[in-house]
């Protein structure tokens, strides 16, 4: 259970960016996994080449990837998709292929990991041994979730994002720069990925397709939590983490994945908009 919560928190953080981008831009971002991979390589380079701890690198990386996301939306996705959903799918899919192959060309296919002094440290919690990186990951995810909630609820940018999400034309009429808000939102989503990458690296590996291991579960969490809901992504992540952990324990690791989709179908049957999704 505890194990599932800790794993689920990072799933939730990976899903946060996805849900934000979907909620505002209505973009099903197929490049999400590839961007996570790129962020993990960035955190890897920070550690392997410059000796920077991934947790220290998290905030600078978030800033860097905010910029990357902003530019990608402003210069690539926006102009290339021309507002059409089918174009957006193709553009983001194309982006993911380009990013993955770029990573393959630069870093080759080797599976790489970093060794940090605290990687093997554990906190004893009753009979459970909880590793430092996972506990830190859990705490950081909650903090990022709160920060994002505050940003969306109480800041001018957050209000503009919500306005654009709700009524794009109306927002434009009251003077909101819609293209800018789209890019900011994509940037925030990508920044969340950078933080996820920094949190994952001390206990996980990086390879050119590593993001794909998380992206399907992230899509599931977005729908389960309610598309566009920040709280939904976090709670959905925790639910999926626990379900995966428990079903893995009782059904076996291989069959454990079934539990994710069973709970997914069950929630959608009872509540088609997802756990925290707005009613139609």
């Amino acid at each position, binding site marked *: 259970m505890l194990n599932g919560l800790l794993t689920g928190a990072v799933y939730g953080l990976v899903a946060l960016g996805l849900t934000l981008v979907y909620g505002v831009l209505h973009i099903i971002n197929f490049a999400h996994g590839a961007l996570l991979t790129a962020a993990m390589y960035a955190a890897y380079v920070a550690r392997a080449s410059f000796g920077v701890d991934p947790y220290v690198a998290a905030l600078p990386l978030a800033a860097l990837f905010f910029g990357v996301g902003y530019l990608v939306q402003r210069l690539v996705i926006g102009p290339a998709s021309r507002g059409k959903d089918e174009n957006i799918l193709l553009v983001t899919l194309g982006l993911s292929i380009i990013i993955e192959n770029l990573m393959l060309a630069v870093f080759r296919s080797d599976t790489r990991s970093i060794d940090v002094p605290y990687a093997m440290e554990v906190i004893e919690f009753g009979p459970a041994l909880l590793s430092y990186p996972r506990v830190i990951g859990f705490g950081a995810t909650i903090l990022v979730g709160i920060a994002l909630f505050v940003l969306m609820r109480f800041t001018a940018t957050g209000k503009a994002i919500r306005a654009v999400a709700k009524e794009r034309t109306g927002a434009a009429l009251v003077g909101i720069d819609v293209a800018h808000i789209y890019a900011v939102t994509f940037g925030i989503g990508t920044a969340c990925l950078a933080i996820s990458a920094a949190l994952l690296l001390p206990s996980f590996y990086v390879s050119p397709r590593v993001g794909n291991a998380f992206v399907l579960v992230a899509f599931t969490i977005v729908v389960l939590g309610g598309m566009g809901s920040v709280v939904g992504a976090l709670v959905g992540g925790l639910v999926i983490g626990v379900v995966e952990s428990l079903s893995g324990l009782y059904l076996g*690791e*291989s069959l454990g994945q079934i539990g994710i989709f069973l709970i997914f179908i069950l929630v959608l049957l009872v509540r088609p908009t997802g756990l925290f999704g707005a009613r139609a």
Partner: protein
Amino acid sequence: MSTNRIARRSLMLGGAGVLGAPLVAGAQAPAVKLGILQPVTGALSQDGEYGRLGAELAIAEINAGGGIRALGGARIETVFGDARSNPEGGVAEVEKMQAEGVTAIVGGFASPICLAASQAASRYDLPYVVDVGVSDQIVSRGLSNTFRFGPGFGVVTQTALDNLVALNDAAGKPSRTVVIVHEDGLFGSGMARLLNTELPKRGFEVLETIAHPTPARDMNNVALRIRSLRPDLVIPSSYYAEFVLLSRTMQQQRIRPKGIYCVLNGAASNYRFVREFPDAANLVMDCNHWPDPRKPRTAELRRAVEAQNRFWLYNVPLNYSAVMLVADALERAGRNDRAALTTALAATDGAFTKHIMPYGPTRFVNGQNQAGAPVNTQVQGGDIKVIFPRDFADAQPVYPVTG
């Protein structure tokens, strides 16, 4: 004066002719197109890259040495195909290689890719030499085009079990209970079935068999299960990334069995793992493919690989040897012809010595080299040492692990 000039001109022309002769001869002998099939994108890309490296080193060596002499010094031309880590990708590349007119294909790495690709190649009577794929199904389908130089998991498991019993007996039988952890694909599942049948016959009790998917996101459940069962031995059969995750999680959860005895494990015989996680890797044993450390070419090849800033993985010597096998068969066939090559491959005997594996005289039965055999390695002091077979081991096993 005039005579001198003519003589000088004749000499120069003659010299140029002599120097140019091999080039002309080389140009005249059509190249042999050899398909190299590896998964260089997708989940298995690391293994595929190292497989390609081994094949390329062999091809470079053959070409630098004058090509295939029986074919007038024909060079080997690589036709590379990316299997994209799945059988469908492998089959698609076989079709492309067929269209390109390759004489043979080497590679595949994973059992499902090898199974599908060799089957596709059989439709064109195209000789297919498996590099790694260990499923015994690969050579039990009666396909006359399919050859495997290395051992299958039947032989590997048998050897692993024999060596495990020898190891345990020599230490006074400290281990009795076992947990098997395996990837849930063709290779891991087949291996687990065999281990489950054979371990009890040898006095071990299998407490549980845990399958995991590839790629796996988390190994905490597996580690917690192992911790609750408290086995004497853990036997993992997984690909690289999953074993790295498992061993690190076991270390975090302070699981210290008397031995981690891997069978065909992707990480335990991998210098990257040893360098990156010396503590988690230390004293892990593996029964796997490994080159013969006594052969001078093994050390030379390893130096060449490390000079490229790459790690020494078993994929390199296996693919190197598989390409050398094809070259040897082409020499004996004397024709750039698929049927002749298949016949020559099937007739390979002890005279084939250009490989660097620790095998006896090569002899194929139903496409399987009867001399293919694994070795046991153990990570000791940041290095990978051979502990079995004893006649070329370069270290004594450290077992049981204490502390």
